[in-house]
């Protein structure tokens, strides 16, 4: 097809579009979609009995706040990765809250070790964490995938990994509201480990979720350009 004819077809068939909101606004929208579902899951599974007391504990509050901040920052970074011309520095946004989260858990491990000795720091298998994070993170992950697909697939692996990190981190925030596992080492290995595993898996699926071929094919279909 001649370029001039393509231009005519694109212009004639283009519908009005609403510009995407900035990444932070998209992250806020994603959070607003995710929170009701997480609240529902926590309600259905039933919140841990000591939840009110836990919110009063500084360490729990810091860990949960850092995990939530990681989720929001990762979501904003994922959305920024799908907007052409946005500074790539945005991709480093989750680094600070993530470092804070890991640091708080690391500090918890050290405190536990000093208080109880190495004997109480034993690792036990806790296979509940991964499926529970997947359960809590399902709707956030789906919402993230749908919202990312409205952007440009400039770096599919990176954007979807960040989106996966956001969904898994918020899944972990929800998990700790009904799963009474607070030993820092266990949280670090089983819960944060699951979050990283899910983000890694998301990264591998990046090209299937975000790719130019499908976006251009649907644009072609809409414009009836053959």
């Amino acid at each position: 097809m001649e370029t001039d004819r393509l231009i005519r077809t694109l212009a004639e068939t283009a519908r009005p579009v609403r510009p995407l909101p900035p990444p932070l606004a998209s992250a806020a929208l994603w959070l607003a979609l995710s929170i009701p579902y997480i609240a529902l899951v926590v309600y259905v599974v039933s919140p841990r009995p000591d939840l009110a007391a836990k919110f009063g504990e500084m360490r729990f509050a810091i860990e949960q706040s850092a995990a939530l901040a990681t989720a929001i920052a990762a979501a904003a970074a994922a959305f920024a990765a799908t907007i052409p011309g946005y500074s790539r520095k945005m991709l480093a946004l989750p680094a600070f809250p993530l470092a804070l989260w890991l640091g708080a858990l690391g500090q918890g491990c050290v405190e536990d070790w000093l208080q109880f000795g190495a004997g109480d720091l034993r690792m036990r298998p806790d296979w509940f964490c991964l499926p529970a994070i997947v359960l809590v993170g399902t709707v956030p992950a789906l919402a993230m995938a749908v919202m990312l697909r409205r952007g440009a697939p400039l770096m599919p692996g990176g954007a979807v990994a960040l989106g996966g990190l956001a969904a898994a981190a918020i899944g972990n925030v929800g998990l700790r509201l009904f799963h009474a596992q607070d030993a820092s080492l266990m949280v670090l290995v089983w819960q944060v480990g699951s979050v990283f595993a899910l983000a890694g898996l998301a990264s591998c699926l990046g090209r299937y979720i975000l790719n130019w071929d499908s976006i251009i094919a649907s644009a072609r279909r809409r414009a009836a350009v053959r």
Partner: protein
Amino acid sequence: MRGQRNRKPSQQTDDRMLAMHMRAAQSGDAQAYAKLLRVLTPRLRHIIANRRRSLQPSDVEDLVQDVLLSLHAVRATYDPERPFMPWLLAIAHNRLADSARRYARHTAREIEMGMSDVTFSEPATNTDMQTYGAQTYGDPQALRRAIRALPPGQRQAVEMLKLSEMSLKEAAAASGMTIGTLKVSVHRAMTALRKALTKE
């Protein structure tokens, strides 16, 4: 406007004009959109030709169209508050990198082949007929006689699949035979023909 501090005034004016057209395009103004795409096309052609100097003009044009389609597909990602050219260049560079990766994958899969004896234009294929015991294949009369001597099913299979060059599906539909039967018949027919022609 953000991101425009280090740019010349003429570039800023140009960018503002493009941004204005893009805003109009986002709100459904077909004329503004066509004008914008027409302004961008030679610039894209120039960028692509400069970045990929080895490309033929037709390949450059394909890439220009690819970038235009990409821009069209993600036009909602343009934020009217931000400069236009960095947005466009990010898309163009991403599509160019994609095309370079595709090209690299394609060439990595390609295997250089020398001229082989099985290539029809090679003399060995056409003179060394003894190798295949087929010195009489060039005799159309003998071939015609041998085909006539085949059992009816095999003859029909050869006529349809080899002489008329029908596909297995077409031949099955025309003859009422199954694809499996056709395959067996044509295999047996070819064996019989090879034997008959070698004897002659």
